[in-house]
């Protein structure tokens, strides 16, 4: 009787295995040669106490360079995608995502502000979160008006984005051109190249919290997509659920952006790709989106660091993929379900 549930469980399992496979295959990529065998030997020795560990230098590359970068890619990809999926449900709008709504620009402004003030990494995340939340507030207020709600929200998001980008530009003017300005500029481009254990932890903690809330609420989330009046008649508090979901999704956005800059479009593209696999039922869609986002960003990051001798900031690559996708969605709107 629960046929659909079984199928979706299989899809999720396959995605999980795919993610693990991608993680393993990502270790050997990079300038310093590390083989798959080295990885198994290293982890076999450290985790299970089997055999001998490979050379120290290999261990250092695995633990200090490759592992944090892989983890950060997965965390940020999963976080941004899950946030996009949550926003789409909350606003009943297939075009919503952290960047389209302006949440990303808000977070970027907040983070830049905190960097300028010399705050700690925790402060940067907090500042990103607060500003991002502020941009969501505007989006909620403006997006509820107008006849064509889907487009109104998208346009409102554009305005909010542009406002916060202007703010960020002002901050750049004030920044110290020797140290702070390059840091802010490079970070704004969106890149995972600065990944170390500290940035992993900065992103990990808020991502785990936000993700846990979304996963726990994932069935309720679906009730927001049928409209407030109907949800209320079914005994659901749409207001409370919406606030909880927006807080969690914005926390995910802030965590991703303050740890690795503005990596755009992931939150728009991935939920739609996943919908083709799991269907729209949020019980399966949300975890599927998180897994898929992790896989996607890891793969794109691998390309960004190996394709050319010079590393491409990953934000540029995701924009090359995401922007055409967004255009395609606008053209094909009615069918974008």
């Amino acid at each position, binding site marked *: 009787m629960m046929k659909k549930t079984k199928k979706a469980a299989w899809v999720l399992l396959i995605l999980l295995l795919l993610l693990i496979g991608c993680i393993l295959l990502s270790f050997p990529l990079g300038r310093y040669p590390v083989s798959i065998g080295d990885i198994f030997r290293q982890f076999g020795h450290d985790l299970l106490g089997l055999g001998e560990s490979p050379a120290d230098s290999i261990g250092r590359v695995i633990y200090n360079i490759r592992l944090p970068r892989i983890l950060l890619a997965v965390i940020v990809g999963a976080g941004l995608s899950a946030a996009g999926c949550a926003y789409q449900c909350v606003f009943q709008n*297939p075009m919503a995502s952290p960047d389209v709504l302006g949440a990303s620009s808000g977070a970027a402004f907040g983070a830049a502000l905190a960097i300028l003030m010399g705050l700690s990494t925790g402060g940067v995340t907090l500042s990103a979160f607060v500003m991002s939340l502020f941009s969501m507030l505007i989006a909620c207020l403006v997006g509820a008006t107008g006849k064509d709600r889907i487009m109104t929200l998208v346009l409102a998001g554009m305005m909010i984005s542009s406002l916060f980008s202007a703010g960020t530009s002002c901050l750049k003017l004030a920044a110290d051109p020797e140290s702070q300005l390059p840091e802010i500029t490079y970070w704004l481009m969106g890149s995972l190249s600065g990944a170390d254990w500290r940035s992993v932890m900065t992103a990990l903690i808020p991502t785990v919290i936000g993700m846990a809330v979304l996963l726990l609420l994932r069935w309720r989330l679906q009730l927001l997509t049928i409209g407030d009046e109907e949800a209320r008649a079914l005994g659901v508090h749409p207001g409370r659920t919406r606030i909880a979901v927006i807080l969690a999704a914005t926390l995910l956005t802030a965590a991703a952006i303050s740890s690795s800059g503005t990596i755009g479009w992931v939150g728009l593209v991935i939920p739609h790709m996943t919908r083709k696999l799991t269907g729209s039922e949020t019980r399966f869609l949300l975890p599927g989106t998180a897994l898929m986002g992790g896989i996607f960003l890891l793969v794109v990051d691998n390309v960004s660091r190996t394709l050319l001798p010079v590393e491409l900031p990953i934000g540029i690559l995701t924009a090359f993929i995401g922007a055409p996708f967004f255009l395609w969605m606008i053209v094909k709107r009615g069918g974008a379900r």
Partner: protein
Amino acid sequence: MKLVVDRLSFGYPHGEQLLKEVSFSAQSGELISLLGPNGTGKTTLFRCILGQLRAAGKIVLDGEPLYSLTPKALAAKVAYIPQSHSPAFSYPVEEMILMGAAAGLKWFQHPGKAEYARLDKVVENLGLQPLRHRAFDTLSGGEQQLVMMARAMMTDARVWLLDEPAANLDYGNQTRLMVLLQQLAEKGYLLIQSTHSPQQAALYSSRVLALADGKLAGDGAPSEVLDADMIQTLYGLRVKICDIPSGGRSVRVFLPD
């Protein structure tokens, strides 16, 4: 199950009074048609009974004032069946129906075995097996209306408020739907449907509430309430009324003059 609506009045602040001292009582087994011209307060009345608008006056269900219930408890007693429309995303029929289980679940709970077992029953009751795994937005209007009713059945509520359930259906589906509503009323549901068709009200409902200008202009059996004067009051239209005998009872037919 007895629903008592006692001198219900509602108006938005600084706006016109939309409902003026509406009183009626109804019980399980009734299929009531709520008639009235556009903008006369039919939807407002529904929204008051659903607790989405707080009106002056009293609404009591089985001795319990409705406004003292939590939204969850209210949802388990009174269901709302909107005109069918597709949500922003496409869900399978099964999933649409399962949403009716929300009131019985805690914040972090998902539908489990018990809910699926109830779903099976509801699906069978309404003969929805062939549609079960179809996407909701690919269904016809009549099929969508059935799914909405299945969702209401899932909530366990015995009082149903239906917003023009037959409005977008073809003649065949309209008739099938009304017969189904009659059967449900016989099973002990209390159904109140808003409708724009006096003919339909006369044919199928056991009782008519006529709402004009926010006031209850008529309340009773269709043959008592729906006379030529009432149609004139409600719709500003002169009609001729014929009662045609059919299978042991008489059927009222309205003919525009």
